[in-house]
């Protein structure tokens, strides 16, 4: 199933949740919608599911107009952030629900339904919980039951809203790996929403980065990390150093200090320079594009994180390998191995 979204706009009062979103999802993809809260990612997901309606724009499934159908007809599996399991039903009945409410003409007989539910509970490895109630399950178990329930209707598309948001760190890591292998197994077109970049980069084939109701970048996890398209993406994904710089007459300045960096092809004016923390190479004073004084040093496993006051008036944090110990008070030179400059402030 391919999904196509064209020029989607959705307002809540005066707040623009979606501001002209275009997106194409290929058959069998596992796509992540990544963005801070309020970026419109959940709204986009709910519109695709039919739980919300856009003010304007188009949504098509395999070229067919999906907005002409209600949530009931779209055949979309939706996993809610807080699972929304039916609290008065057993796990078994939760998973069976989608099969039991089918119109009588196509409804399966009881034996078939039982076999199918059993199969799904096996798939999520929780068949031993069939007779429990949702309140008796752990967060990770609820999450997997919610997924089994959504899969029961053999959905054309699987949508997951912050699937790991309410879980603790360890369970979250396990479930991520599990979800990726499950997707590999069932291969249904899937979209999940997350605000956690690590989650998006680890699980998805493709990542859509959103901010303020707009799509900032669409690309593979490597693309969005290595070659961020906008200042927002660079700042949001990975740990970045952000410096306000001025570009005039082929020179990049930080405060009043010219930097020894090439300014070829850059538009003059106020800009922002982004460097990954671990891309700042430490050298002796006088070497490199920047110079600064070390303020604090803390060790984080294989790296030392140093707070450096740059001459030019900004304080940054860098991650340096521990082969050369830094000490507070040292004056050092810094050379960005890679950097990007985006116009504007």
């Amino acid at each position, binding site marked *: 199933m391919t999904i196509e979204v064209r020029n989607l706009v959705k307002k809540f009062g005066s707040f623009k949740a979606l501001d002209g979103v275009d997106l194409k999802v290929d058959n069998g993809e596992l796509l992540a919608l990544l963005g801070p809260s309020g970026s419109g990612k959940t709204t986009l997901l709910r519109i695709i*599911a*039919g*739980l919300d309606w856009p003010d304007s724009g188009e949504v098509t499934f395999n070229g067919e107009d999906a907005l002409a159908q*209600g*949530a*009931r007809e*779209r*055949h*979309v*599996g*939706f996993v*809610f952030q*807080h*699972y*929304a*399991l*039916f*609290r*008065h039903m057993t796990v078994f009945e939760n998973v069976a*629900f*989608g099969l039991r*409410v*089918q119109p009588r003409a196509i409804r399966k007989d009881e034996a078939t339904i039982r076999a199918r539910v059993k199969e799904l509970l096996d798939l999520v490895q929780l068949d031993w919980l069939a007779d429990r*109630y*949702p*309140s008796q399950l752990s967060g990770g178990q*609820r999450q997997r039951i919610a997924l089994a*329930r*959504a899969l*029961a*209707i053999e959905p054309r598309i699987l949508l997951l809203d912050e699937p790991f948001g*309410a879980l603790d760190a360890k369970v979250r890591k396990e479930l991520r790996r599990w979800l990726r292998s499950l997707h590999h197994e069932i291969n249904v077109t899937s979209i999940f929403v997350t605000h956690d970049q690590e989650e998006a980069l680890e699980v998805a084939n493709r990542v859509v980065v959103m901010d303020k109701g707009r799509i900032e970048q669409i690309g593979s996890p490597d693309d969005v990390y290595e070659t961020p398209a906008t200042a927002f993406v660079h700042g949001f994904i990975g740990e970045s150093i952000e410096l306000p710089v001025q570009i005039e007459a082929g020179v990049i300045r930080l405060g009043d200090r010219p930097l020894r960096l090439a300014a070829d092809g850059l538009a003059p004016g106020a800009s922002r320079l982004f460097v990954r923390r671990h891309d700042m190479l430490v050298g002796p004073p006088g070497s490199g594009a920047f110079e600064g004084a070390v303020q604090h040093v803390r060790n984080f496993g294989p790296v030392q994180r140093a707070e450096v006051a740059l001459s030019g008036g900004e304080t940054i944090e860098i991650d340096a390998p521990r082969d050369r110990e830094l000490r507070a008070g040292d004056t050092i030179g810094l050379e960005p191995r890679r950097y990007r400059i985006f116009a504007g402030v």
Partner: protein
Amino acid sequence: MTMQIADSVSLSAPDAKARAHAAAARNNLRTEPRAVRIVIIALAMIFLGVFVVLPLVVVFAQAFSKGILAYLAALADPEALSAIRLTLVVAAISVGLNLVFGLVAAWAIAKFEFPGKTFLITLIDLPFSVSPVISGLVFVLLFGAQGYFGGWLRDHDIQILFAVPGIALATTFVTFPFVARALIPLMQEQGTQEEEAAISLGASGLQTFFRVTLPNIKWGVLYGVLLCNARAMGEFGAVSVVSGHIRGETNTMPLLVEILYNEYQFVAAFAIASLLAMLALITLIAKTVLENHLDEGHDASDH
């Protein structure tokens, strides 16, 4: 340090000592002296005894003062039977109507956003804040001979006031908030996610209501119905204004109690009153049971 570890690992004996310490600590937390505690508890008990238990005992004592035969005879009186029948009919009508109204109102308030919602919530409480006598008078004003619809009703030969419809209307008005009030907070707390899940799984609106919404609120519904019924059967003020006190026709149980009492028929009055008191006791027990179920529901919803 090593000593402490060894201590906590070694078995039972220090364990018992620790428990004794804990018990002592708990006692110390109660700062009031023993005498003060006894006085406070005694005051509460005496107050409850005089104002709650004693009246209840008096009702039954008076009802049975001339023996059980007189008691049964009083209840078997045609007027008493008619009052009991009328009370049951009126309660059935008003509870039925309020169940439907309450469900619809709570559904609308909890699951949708619309202008005027706060106003509607306030309005639902109106019958609680208005004196029942005023509520009754409103219906006299609307349907009485001199009222707004009085002429039209007389022309079409429809009797509302001083008849069952008027009593049912007044009772329904007075008891309107119970079901809605029991359901609104419950449904607001539960939100709409389970309904959304049901619809995305292919359920129709009716299937969603009967398979998801209603089971989630069933204890709340029963709770509301119970309180609504208790008030409907016991309502005096509003019914007194619209009933006309026609003996054997428009007297409900509370009205009959008053009439019999005024006529010095104490056994008969208290016999009917004892039925109302029993209703109250049953309601109280059922309410406690339902509240336990409601608490369980809240726990289960605690995702």
